[in-house]
């Protein structure tokens, strides 16, 4: 090895060299899972909003069947003549039963069960529709009809997802802080062990930045090693979760998919881990050296 590149402070045999990469790997693993959760929830919320924000449902729940059919026809006619409505499709009785089957079981929806008439309405993406005004118009032609924009239902899902996202972000932040604390302890331990070497370098004219560079190079390597191990294991875990969730896409749960965002985040994470480790080590060393004469 070149004389100039050979480390002056020999940190390789320090316990931190053996243990720290694994500790950082655990931290990187947790951070990767947390970030995957954040990205997935973020995408799910966006998908839910996109899927439901242009869909409303009209349901007619009361009255005799013939009266409900009359009201349904009136509503469909009204909707088809309303600007901003792409389609208004009444759902068949079997389609509505199909919606109930996940809760009541297949074949358990008896014919006598009063089920509402539903009209699936798709709003134009190019034109805003005043849903409040539309609701009043519908009420005028069909007194037993209700316009449901899914707002309350969707909002609860979004609130839940946003809170879970906040928790995941909190976990990632705590993992980052814990990593910083661990690196500070490891760096201080390294400085204590190599105190004599540091003092000699200091006394023969080494600048703080020169001494810090000895530590930062070492900790950069450890951080990168730990980050790669942790993210590698996290990748395997996420692939497993993704495989298990395959086929559940119709259910209303966030589906883990390897989006570009998630892949970029996972690729950046080892680099971030190594830089966080390096900068923490550098700051710890320069802070300690500043107390020397």
């Amino acid at each position: 090895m070149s004389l100039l590149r050979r480390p002056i402070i020999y940190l390789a045999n320090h316990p931190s060299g053996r243990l720290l990469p694994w500790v950082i790997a655990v931290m990187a693993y947790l951070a990767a899972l947390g970030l995957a959760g954040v990205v997935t929830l973020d995408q799910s919320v966006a998908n839910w909003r996109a899927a439901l924000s242009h869909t409303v449902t009209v349901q007619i729940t009361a009255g005799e069947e013939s009266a409900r059919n009359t009201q349904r026809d009136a509503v469909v006619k009204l909707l088809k003549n309303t600007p901003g409505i792409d389609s208004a499709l009444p759902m068949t009785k079997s389609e509505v039963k199909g919606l109930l089957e996940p809760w009541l079981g297949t074949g358990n929806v008896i014919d006598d069960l009063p089920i509402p008439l539903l009209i699936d309405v798709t709003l134009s993406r190019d034109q805003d529709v005043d849903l409040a005004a539309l609701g009043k118009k519908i009420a005028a032609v069909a007194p037993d009809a209700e316009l449901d924009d899914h707002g309350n239902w969707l909002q609860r899902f979004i609130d839940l997802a946003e809170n879970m996202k906040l928790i995941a972000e909190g976990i990632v932040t705590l993992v980052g802080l814990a990593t910083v604390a661990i690196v500070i302890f490891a760096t201080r331990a390294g400085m204590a062990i190599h105190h004599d070497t540091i003092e000699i370098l200091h006394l023969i004219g080494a600048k703080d930045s020169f001494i810090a560079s000895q530590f930062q190079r070492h900790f950069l390597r450890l951080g990168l090693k730990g980050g790669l191990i942790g993210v590698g294991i996290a990748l395997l875990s996420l692939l497993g979760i993704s495989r298990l969730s395959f086929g559940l896409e119709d259910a209303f749960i966030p589906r883990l998919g390897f989006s570009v965002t998630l892949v970029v985040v996972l690729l950046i994470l080892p680099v971030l881990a190594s830089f966080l480790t390096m900068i923490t080590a550098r700051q710890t060393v320069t802070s300690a050296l500043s107390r020397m004469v």
Partner: protein
Amino acid sequence: MIRFENVGVRYGMGPEVLRDINFDLKPGSFHFLTGPSGAGKSSLLRLMYLAVKPSRGLISMFDQDVTKAERKDLPALRRRIGVVFQDFRLLPHLTALENVALPLRIAGAREDQIKEHVAELLAWVGLADRINARPPTLSGGEQQRVAIARAVIARPSLLLADEPTGNVDRKMGERLLHLFVELNKIGTTIVIATHDSGLAERVNAPLLTIEDGQLSHLPPPLPSEPTLRVAYGRGERRAPAPESAAPAEPGEDLDAPAHATTPENAPSDTSPPDASPSDTPPPNTPSSTPV
């Protein structure tokens, strides 16, 4: 070069270990620092190599008031000072060559320059075949020579040595002393802390004697054998010489230039022992272009 005015040092709330230290070492001078153990020699050296700050007083080095200098300016001053520690303080995981190369690496020298100069200096101190040895495998004397080589490799303006010949035999002691003298001839100010009165006699340089934390200045001791000539005491504040003390060389001019003595006119018996083709210090080491 170095001026101390009313300098005092105390550690924590303890008593002053150095009191009212006053001296002025001119550039290119050669001094010995003597005194009994615990008198404050190490504390005085620590002040001089900027490891501690004084509790009071003024220290001026290289025309800078180091007591008021900003911390970021101190590394540049330290690079002008070579230090030979009594316990060597070599880095055990580095080879002799790497240890000696440290000051040059810190100064940002090129690798080819470093290797050439360091190998040459190590050869001169008799360690040509030990350049790849690590300190734990070196004898005390070898470690001491590596420590001295590290202190002088960057051609310091000031060399501070704490018992630099304490672990070597007489022959090697003289060889190392010769290196210090040669460095002094090219302008390096030398201060050697020692208990060895014979060493001071051999060089015939003035003494800084410290006792109970206070410093006194004495002229060179009377030599009992031929001396190495040095450009000592040019204009330093000297205590009045006792009547019994006499200059080492009759009529020696205290204001003589630092290079008054040359290898050619130096006494022959002051040449290093184990004469070799490179008997004088390696030209590249103390006298070559700084790297």
